[in-house]
């Protein structure tokens, strides 16, 4: 039996009387490409925010590799091995591309260096700084961003900003990568390219990925398993093909015949 990376038990949150998510049970096994889909306002991003510690869950628990991470701060969740991207791209716009990635690398135990060492530029600082830069260059090369490394992140075209966001998330050395609508605002060609990128990340980085997506072509193209949310509840889950042919799901997306 493969190792379970992420498990949520009856996860839910209520804002006042509104239950934005309730009884969400995800179980993601190592190496999975897991999709979380649902109509607008179904609570997909809320689930992401509950997992990454943006919101504290009102009910339920989150386990990462068997360890309870319910209610941890965003920083700790990231350090424990969950990295995410955002629905609307959130890069560090006024920093260069390579520095964006290096922010992600900072918590890596190989590059330990305290503030005093930085201010006095000790040999330890020089060593970690050079190593970080090389590491960041390698990551950028993998994503085809090496040429643009000294540009401001703001100046990159949209597709490359998405790639940079994924590269930055991978720089934190996660066990689980959460992608929040990576194909939002992309044309079919860019989506295809993104699909290749995600497949490649999964294979080459041996990454477990949970993604939210609206683009059914992308979902059916890359996801193994799906969970469908509707009004904060799980509608159904299972293998991609079964789920997408489920009449309930089709009803939730396209509406009833009446």
């Amino acid at each position, binding site marked *: 039996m493969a190792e379970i990376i992420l498990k949520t038990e009856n996860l839910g949150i209520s804002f006042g009387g509104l239950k934005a998510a309730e009884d969400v049970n995800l179980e993601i096994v190592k190496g999975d490409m897991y999709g979380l889909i649902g109509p607008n306002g179904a609570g997909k991003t809320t689930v992401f925010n509950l997992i990454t510690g943006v919101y504290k869950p009102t009910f339920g628990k989150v386990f990462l590799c068997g360890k309870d991470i319910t209610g941890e701060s965003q920083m700790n969740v990231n350090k424990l091995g969950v990295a995410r991207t955002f629905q609307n791209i959130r890069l560090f716009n006024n920093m260069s591309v390579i520095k964006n990635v290096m922010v992600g690398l900072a918590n890596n135990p190989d590059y330990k260096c305290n503030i005093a060492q930085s201010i006095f530029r000790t040999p330890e600082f020089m060593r970690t*700084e050079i190593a970080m830069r090389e590491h960041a260059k390698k990551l950028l090369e993998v994503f085809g961003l090496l040429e*643009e490394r000294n540009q401001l992140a703001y100046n990159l075209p949209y597709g490359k900003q998405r790639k940079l966001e994924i590269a930055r998330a991978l720089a934190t050395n996660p066990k689980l990568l959460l992608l929040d609508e990576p194909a939002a605002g992309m044309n079919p060609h860019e989506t295809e390219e993104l699909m290749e990128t995600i497949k490649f990340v999964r294979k080459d980085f041996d990454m477990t990925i949970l993604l939210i997506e609206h683009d059914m072509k992308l979902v059916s193209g890359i996801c193994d398993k799906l969970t469908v949310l509707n009004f904060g509840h799980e509608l159904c889950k299972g293998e991609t093909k079964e789920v997408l042919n489920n009449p309930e799901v089709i009803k939730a997306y396209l509406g009833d015949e009446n």
Partner: protein
Amino acid sequence: MNGFIRYFSAVKARFKLKNYLTYFIFLAFILIFAPLGLTGSLKMSTEFMLEQIGYSIVAAISLSLVVGFLGELSLGHAGFMSIGAMVGALLQNKLYPSLSASSPFLALVIAMIVGGLAAAVFGFIIGLPALRLKGDYLAIVTLAFCQIVQTIFEQLPFFGGTLGIANAARYSSHKLFIVIFVVALISLVAINNFIKSKHGRAVMAIRDNEIAARAMGVNVSFNKIFVFVFSSFIAGIAGVLMAASKNTVAANAFTYNYSIDILVMVVLGGMGNINGSIVAATLITVLNISLNNVFTGSMAAIKNIVYALVLILIVIYTNAPGLKSFREKHGFGVYWSKFTAKIVKLFSKKELKQDPAKEKEFGADWSKVPTKVEMDAILSTDLTPDKSYVSDKPAPDGKTDGSGKGDK
């Protein structure tokens, strides 16, 4: 020993003159003025001006850390300076009479450290609300802090009340401005080193996008508080230096207006641009002093009007969109980059790797974005490796062919 050799070879391999030019200019400045000061051939007024420039630079770069790099507006920087100044002056006056008399320089150094630490404690206290507050609200908190500090110092007889502390035991000599400039250089190096490390990058990440920074595992609380502590430590040192150049240190020298003066230096120098802050601090101090000299006596009221007008003109010049093309030719940044390029060329045997024309090719430039018609032409053309691009459109000036290929 081996480690040291490796360290220096690593430093040498990555050494770029461009990054260290400000330090060398600073050093050159000190080396030029130090002999003049030591021999006593400078006028008192010139010395005073240099001292004022020096501590303004220290104050401006310390505020630049909060405003330009952390991205929080602080209107209370004079408060930190006054804490440093008061504590430093008190220390030099009362607690170390024997030391101040025998070795005023050592007393000044101790005062700088203690004054800086005292200011840093308050920086920590102000840093705490900064975790919850943002923008205007934090600005009001810092403004209130500045007023409270000023009022408390004015009410406490221990600090001399409104009259302030008669700064009898200060380090007063012709060498003071050299000390101030050396301290300025050291704090500049410290701030630059901080900014160019992973901690500095974390701070800038918080400025650019706090939510993303958190999600990338940046310790936002720690970094925010540390920036406030670091910045106020250096501001406290600036306060001690300011006190050292004056006969009396009174709390009313550190009003809200003075905070704004420092903020103006940072804003005019450009947010997140330390070298700009240094230049702006120098220019504004010189402007202030020369206006003081021109408008004396009954004309003194005009001074503020002229000062404000000059500031407005500078802001218009640096920000007005209409002057953009003029700025691109004659802006300060242009001259600075030309100057650095020249200096670097002077000292390096190698040819310059970076070629401005090439750089422009990669940068975002709206002028090279193809129009709809051009784009259609580009997209409709079938490109195969062995078939060179031929535009459908007749070339108007014969160069469409080349540019089309470049765009593809």
